[in-house]
């Protein structure tokens, strides 16, 4: 069903990948779309690989994205963003946090962390926009805002307006007070701006 939008969100267990995808799904449903969200995750909370699939449109059948058909890849971690490049369709776009989370198997010297994941992705010919979501969150005073920065980053690469997604993000924080709502609004806009600036620079 080619009229569906396929969004792949990837990272490692504990980063908030599944929550981010769920908020994207809520936004799609708020607009009246059918939506399915699924993970290809093992024992995900244990620092392993997580890839969360979201498909939405008029009617979604298979929940998982077939390799080579993702419209957007939202990567929470550099090497993980590399790992899932084959999921993108031709002409698809990667939005990538430049953060690196090095696993114990690399610390033990059993494997190497890729020297320059961004360059590798570029070499493969896929379109990629990179930004440092972690620093943006830190600048706002709380690294936990990174998740909202990532959602802001994808906001202008969806077949619907950024406001719907922002509403769904802020709804999550309403009960926690106006201050947190405002911080998340800033984080969302900062993520949006970071991607916008990177794209403008590349154009």
């Amino acid at each position, binding site marked *: 069903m080619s009229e569906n939008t396929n969004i792949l969100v990837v990272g*490692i267990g*504990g*980063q*908030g990948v599944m929550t981010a995808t769920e908020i994207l*799904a*809520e936004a799609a*449903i708020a607009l009246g779309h*059918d*939506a*399915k*969200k*699924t993970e*290809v995750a*093992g*024992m*995900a*909370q*244990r*620092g*392993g*690989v997580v890839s969360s699939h979201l498909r939405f449109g008029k009617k*979604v*059948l*298979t*929940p*998982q994205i*077939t*390799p*080579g*058909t993702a419209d957007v890849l939202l990567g929470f*971690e550099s*090497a993980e963003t*590399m*790992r899932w*490049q*084959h*999921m*993108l369709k031709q002409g698809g776009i990667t939005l990538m946090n430049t*953060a690196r989370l*090095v*696993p114990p*198997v690399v*610390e033990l*010297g*059993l494997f*190497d*962390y*890729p020297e320059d994941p961004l360059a590798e*992705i570029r070499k*493969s010919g896929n379109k990629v926009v990179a930004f440092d*979501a*972690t620093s943006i*969150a830190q600048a706002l*005073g709380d*690294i*936990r*805002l*990174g*998740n*909202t920065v990532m959602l802001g980053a994808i906001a202008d690469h969806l077949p619907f307006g950024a406001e719907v997604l922002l509403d769904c993000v802020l709804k999550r924080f309403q009960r926690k007070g106006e201050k947190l709502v405002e911080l998340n609004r800033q984080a969302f806009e900062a993520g949006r701006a970071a991607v916008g600036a990177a794209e403008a620079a590349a154009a």
Partner: protein
Amino acid sequence: MAAVMPAPAASRLLMSGNEAVARAVWESGVKVAAAYPGTPSTEMLEVISTYPDLYAEWSVNEKVSLEVAIGAAYAGSRAFCCMKHVGMNVASDALMTLTLTGVVGGLVIAIADDVGLSSSQNEQDSRYWGRFAHLPVLEPADSQEAYAMTKVGFELSERFQVPVILRMTTRINHVKSVVEVGERETHAGNGFKKEPGRFVMVPGNAGKRIPLMFKRDNELRALAEQSPLNFIEDGSDKRVGFIASGPAYMHVKESFPNAPVLKLGLSCPVPFEKCRELAALVEQVVVVEEVEPLVETELKAQGIKLLGKEILPRQGELSPNVLRPAIARLLGETVPEMQSTVALQVFPRPPTMCVACPHLGVYYTLSQIRNISIAGDIGCYTLGAGHPWNALDTCVSMGASMGVALGMDKGRGESDKDKRILAVIGDSTFLHMGMQGLLDIVYNKGNVTVLLLDNRAVGMTGGQDNPGNGRDIYGDDTPRVNFPALVEALGVKKDRIHTVDPYQLPVLFKTIRDEVKVPEVSVIITDQPCVLIKDYHKMKPYEVIEDKCTGCGNCIDVGCPAIHVTRRGKEVKASGREVDLAFVRIESSVCTGCGLCVQPCAPDAIVHYAPVSPIKLVNMSCGS
């Protein structure tokens, strides 16, 4: 978990299959729901426990959970029980006789198969239980169907007085999709009525129930022929027609939108006539089922010509990227090529133990002891088989570490006649099915050192409560198992029972090394909580003084994910031997100060973290 106000009827909600089943259980007026946690089934009972007006419990194992549900259903109440696929292996003793008595109140048993092995030790097809136990099997294809079929299941169960199996897979349990929910109905049971001929299954009574079971089979097959859960969707491309169930149905519809399809929602007993009806519409039939060829084999025995596992894999999911090439080959078409770029090679990232996990101390210690064999079990501590510890040698089934260790002891060969045998098991796994194994070691005078890792939680499934931590599913206080007293009662000598803090490496090391030398059963209990539950208290984090680090790498061998290598080097020792060096830093923002890495650090380079300024933040993660 505290009860919350359920969403009103007619709400369109984004729900996982597990959440959808939980909602339907509540709406169906279920009075008793029981389970033991197990991926991917766990959330069903977790969510049920948040609904009002019913009783939910974590049972000690799946067999007990089914028995609790049976009792409630005998008493006329609606009851629910759920488990992961391997859980039914444990519960099946009850199931195989339950099918003879049947039920009074409706009983639905949800079994979650881990197709694709996301978090399990095997990949088995629970639809076999429908055949083995002569029970109807419902197979939802998404959350909405999981919700609807749960409700149908209770009606079916009461109409035929038969327990109903709701067969789910990971791709149903954990997928979130849109569900429209309804109202709760009340369902008052009439209480237990004595009926020995039906509820006391001694040979004389059971023998009379078997013909009734066969009669019920025929009635259910007739129902399957008529049921709206089994339907044919015609299509314009008659070259291949499909018979599909569960998530495989969605994959067929996605891959071949114009093909005729028979969807089996009530897939056992198989509606043979409906299948013949589909076969008459098309040139050839392909059965698409995850994972064993059950429907296929039964239809072939009926003389219906079709294909199945000759052209499809007998393992894993039958997703579009599997189905499309297989059918293209069947039709002699060119196999459609994936339009993607080549996958880029990246290191593997296996699951790890958490920062400061109490198991780190245990596995670090075990990795330092030579000439041992370690029988392992199911839980977070199975990760001890991986790097850097490589300190777990077997993993079979819940509680198996006990029996396997005893068997390794009794079955020694020439090469391992002097080996010390250890068994490693968690608190909840021990209570689930390990106690009996320990009793067997004691009874048969085995020479095994048992490490009972009591972290007060079912860790791997998300830290659920259990009899070992003194809290029930609602978080309320309940009697807590006294492990030293329990193992002593099983016959382990008091001198051979030790309770040790797993963060005290010298004590742990000495205790294990001493006990493995004693030629009888010992039990060493570690007593620190899982870092993911509320019993765990964080302490002051550590950091590495860069100038003092000699790059020896001892701390890396602990295996804590908070330790990172900053640079590598080489050093030539006085002996002329060249050794690798790895200089480290500690991610102080995630370190919780357990102190494990401090102990093997010879140059005392690891000290309490002293932030230069209060806003120094160095974490690279993106959130919680």
